[in-house]
C-alpha cells in the first residue's frame, strides 16, 4: 500500500506533530508514504478570492501525484475537501479540465483524472482496514470518553467528497472505538470548528469554537479528537487564546487521531509529538491499560 502524502501548508509550518504521528502510525500499519516535494497549496484558502486559482493549485497537486502514479493520502480535511472538489469539477466539466491542463502542460504535467484522493481516516478505515488495526492494538484505552469531531470539509458536500454518510457518519467513531476509547454522542459533533473565520471574524469564530467545546464537555468528553490541521489548530492554539481571556467552562484538550491511535498501538508519546500540542494532553496516557 503506497500513497503520496499530502501535507499542505499548515502542517509543516505549525503542526509538525500531525505529520510525525501520522507517519509513525502508518508505518506501523504497513502503509508506505512517498513525499512529493513539488506539492503546493491545496487551493482551499484561495477559493474566496478566485475560483480558478484555487482549482489550478489543487489540480497541480493531483497532476503531480498522477505523474508518480500514486493515490493521495491527505491529512487536512479542508485540503481533502478542496482536492476532491477540484477533481469532481474537472471530471464534470471537460472545458475546465482542458483549460487547467493547458496551464499545467507549460510545466510538463497534466491531470487525467486517474487517481484517488483519500483522507488519512479513509486510508485507515478502508485501505488498512479495521481488523488489521485491531490486531495491532497493544494498549487499548480504558474509561476514556472522546468527543469525535468530524470536520465539515470531509463530510460535505457529500456528493463530492463521498467520505461517509453526511447525516449520520460512523467512520471516525468506529476508528476511535478501536482504540478502546468510547466515542460519545454529542449534539454539535458535525458542526464547524470555527477555523474558516479565524482571522476574518474572530469573535464569531471563537464563539463557535467555545460553544462546540462546551457541548462536548457537557456531554461528558475527556478529550476531543480531530483529524484536520485547521480544526486542530483551532481547538488547540485558538482555544488557548480563548482560555487565556478567562472563563474555562468549555476547556477541553484536543488530540489528533493519529496521536490517539498511536498510543494504543504502543508508540511512545515523544514519537507522536504529544508535547508539541499547545494544550497539555499528556494526561491521556493515564487512560492506557497496562
Amino acid at each position, binding site marked *: 500500500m503506497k500513497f503520496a502524502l499530502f501535507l*499542505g*501548508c*499548515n502542517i*509543516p*509550518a*505549525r503542526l509538525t506533530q500531525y505529520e510525525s504521528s501520522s507517519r509513525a502510525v502508518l508505518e506501523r500499519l504497513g502503509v508506505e508514504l512517498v513525499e512529493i*516535494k513539488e506539492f*503546493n*497549496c491545496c487551493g*482551499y*484558502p*484561495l*477559493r*474566496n*478570492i*478566485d*475560483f*480558478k*486559482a484555487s482549482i*489550478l*493549485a489543487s489540480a*497541480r497537486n493531483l497532476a503531480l501525484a498522477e505523474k508518480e502514479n500514486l493515490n493521495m493520502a491527505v491529512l487536512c480535511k*479542508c485540503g481533502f475537501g478542496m482536492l476532491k472538489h477540484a477533481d469532481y*469539477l474537472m471530471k*464534470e*466539466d471537460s472545458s*475546465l479540465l482542458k483549460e487547467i491542463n493547458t*496551464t499545467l502542460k*507549460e*510545466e510538463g504535467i497534466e491531470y487525467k483524472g486517474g487517481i484517488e484522493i483519500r483522507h488519512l481516516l479513509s486510508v485507515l478505515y478502508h485501505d488498512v482496514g479495521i481488523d488489521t488495526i485491531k490486531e495491532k492494538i497493544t494498549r487499548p484505552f480504558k474509561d476514556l470518553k472522546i468527543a469525535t469531531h468530524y470536520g*465539515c*470539509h470531509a*463530510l*460535505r*458536500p*457529500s456528493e463530492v467528497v463521498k467520505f461517509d454518510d*453526511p447525516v449520520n457518519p460512523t467512520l471516525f467513531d468506529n476508528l476511535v472505538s478501536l482504540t478502546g476509547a468510547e466515542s460519545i454522542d454529542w449534539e454539535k459533533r458535525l*458542526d*464547524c470548528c*470555527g*477555523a*474558516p*473565520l*479565524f*482571522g*476574518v*471574524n*474572530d469573535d*464569531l*469564530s471563537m*464563539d*463557535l469554537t467555545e460553544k462546540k467545546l462546551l457541548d462536548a464537555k457537557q456531554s461528558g468528553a475527556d478529550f476531543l479528537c480531530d483529524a484536520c490541521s*485547521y480544526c486542530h*489548530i483551532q481547538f488547540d*492554539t*485558538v482555544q488557548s*487564546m480563548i482560555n487565556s481571556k478567562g472563563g474555562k467552562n468549555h476547556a477541553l484538550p484536543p488530540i489528533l487521531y493519529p496521536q490517539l491511535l498511536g498510543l494504543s498501538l504502543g508508540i511512545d508519546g515523544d514519537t507522536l509529538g504529544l508535547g508539541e500540542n499547545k494544550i497539555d494532553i499528556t494526561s491521556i496516557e493515564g487512560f492506557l491499560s497496562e
Partner: protein
Amino acid sequence: MFYDISLYISLAIFIIGLIYKICRWLSRKTTLEAKDIPASKRLSSAIKGIVVTIFSLKILTLIKVFFLDIIIQRKVLQEDSFRWLTHIFIYVAFILLLLMHALDKFITSALFSSYSATLNPFLFLRDLFGALVIIGICMAIYRRFILKPTRIKTNPMDTYAIIILAIIMLSGILLEGAKIGSYAIYKNMVTDYAGLEEGEEDFKALTAFWVAKFGTISPDIKAPFKDEMLEAGKEIHEMSCSGCHSRAQWAFIGYPVAKAFKGAALTFDKAGVHTLLLYIHFLACFIGLAYLPFSKFLHIITSPLSLLANSVMDKEKSDPANIATRQALELDACTHCGACTSRCSVGIIIEQIENINILPSEKIQSLKAVVSRKEMEEKDFRIILDGAYLCTNCHRCTDVCPAGINLEELWFNMREDMFQKDYPEFSVLSPLSFYRGLMRETIEQKDYKKPLNLAREAIASKCDLMKTPDKVVSLTPADKELQGSLVLSDQASTFQGCFGCQTCTNVCPVVASYENPKEVLGMLPHQIMYAAGLGVRDLAFGSNMLWDCLTCYQCQEQCPQGVHVTDVLYELKNLAIRNVYKD
C-alpha cells in the same frame, strides 16, 4: 598611473557605497515597531548585540553556520545540486583568482618568494580557476536562459552580474592568449632579461626555441628549425628565461587561444590589442568593484551577515531594534536566485492571478521599493500589498533561502506596515488570514481589526441598496449580467432552483449565532440565493453574510432543491472582489 587612479576611484566608490548601504540598514523601516527607533539607537543596539553574541556560547553557532551555510552552502546543495555546483565553481574559483592573481603583489608574492605569474603552479592554477569560473558562468547562463525553470524570473541585475563576470573572465583569457603570442612583448623581455637585440644569432636561436615551444609568433623566424638552432636557443632560455617561465602550454586555456589567433597575432601586436585587452580586463574588475554595493554582488557581504544574524536571533528574545536592522539588511541580502519562488506554495496561481508579487523572489524586490521610496502610486502600492497577502505562510520560502532571510517574518511585518496606508485589501477576507489570526497577539488591537473593516466597507460601499435598507428595490429588469456571470464553477447556476424555503438559513450555524442575524449579517442565505436569482447585484454582494460564511456546507447539503448554496456564496465572493477591483 591610469591604473592606480581608476583603482582608487573605484575603491572609493565601493567604500562610499558600502557606508551608504550600512546607513540604509540602520534607517529602513520594515516593522511598525521600528518607526519609533532612531538610527543611532539601532547602531548602538547592533554593536552591543554583536559584541555580546561573540563573547557568548553563540559563537559556536556562528562558526557552524559560517562553515556549513556560508562556505559549503548546504541549503543550496539540499535544494538543487546543479545550482550548487554552478555557484561553488563561480565563487570559490573567483575568490582564489582574486587572492592568487589579482592581489598577487600583496598575497602570493609575500607567501612565495619565487612567485612569478608565468611560473607553475601559478600559471596552471590561474587557468584552472579561470576555467572553473567560466564553466560556472556557462551553467548559470544555461539555467537562466535555456533551462528557464518555471516561474523563475531573470531581471536586469541578474543579467548584469553574468555579463560583468563574463567580461572579466573573457578579457583575462584573451589577454593571456595575446601575450603568449605577442612578439613585441617577447622582444622587450629578451632585451631586458637576456640582453639580446633583434638580428643577433643568439636572439634568432632563442626566438626559434620560443616559437617552437612557447607559441610566440615571430614575423621572420618560422618553423621548421634545425635541431642545433633549437639546442642553442634552449641553452639561452635556461640561462635567462626559465627562472620565470614554465611552458606556456600549462596555460591550458590561454595557449589554445594564442594558437587560434596565430594568423592575426602580428596584426594584433601592431595594433596594441594586448594593451587594449589589459585595459578592458582591469577596468571591468574596477567597475565590478565600484558597482558592487549597488548590484546583486552585495550579497557577498549581506548574505553571510543575514545567515549569521538569523542563526542567533529570534523574534521573541531579540532586541526589536536589531530585528528592524536585520530585516533592512535582509532586503539587500537577496541574490534573486529563485529558490523561494520555485518552492512557493502559491506560485502556480500567478498563471491565473497576474501579479508578479505573488512570487517571493519578486515580492522582496517590490518591498524593497516600498521601503525605499517615499511616494508610490496607489495602484502600484496596492498590487504589491495584494501580492504580499496572497501567501499561505507555509514557511517554505524561509526554509530554503540560501541567504537565510527570514522571509515569512518579513512578509508579515511588511504587510502589517502596509495596512497603515488604509488601502483596502480584499484577500484579508479569506482563510489566508488564518495565520494573521494566530499572530493577533503580536499586533495592536486597533491595527488588527482595521484591514478587515476596511475591506468589508470598501465592498459594501459599492452596494447602494445595502446602505439604504428602506429603498424600494426594482426587480425589473433583472441583472442578466449577474445571473449570467454565476457560472464559474458550473454549479452556482443552481441558485435558480431556490423556492425560498429557508432551509439553508435555518441550518446555518452563523445565522444561529446571532439573536438578530439580519441586523449583523445583512442578508441571510436564502435571501442571497433569491437576490442572485432575481439578479439584484447590490443585495447579493453587499451583505456581511458573504464574508461570515464558514463554508461548512450545511446549507448546501440540506437544500431540498439541490441549490449549491455554499458554492454560490463562494462565487458571489469572487465576483464581489472582482467588482471592486474593476473599479
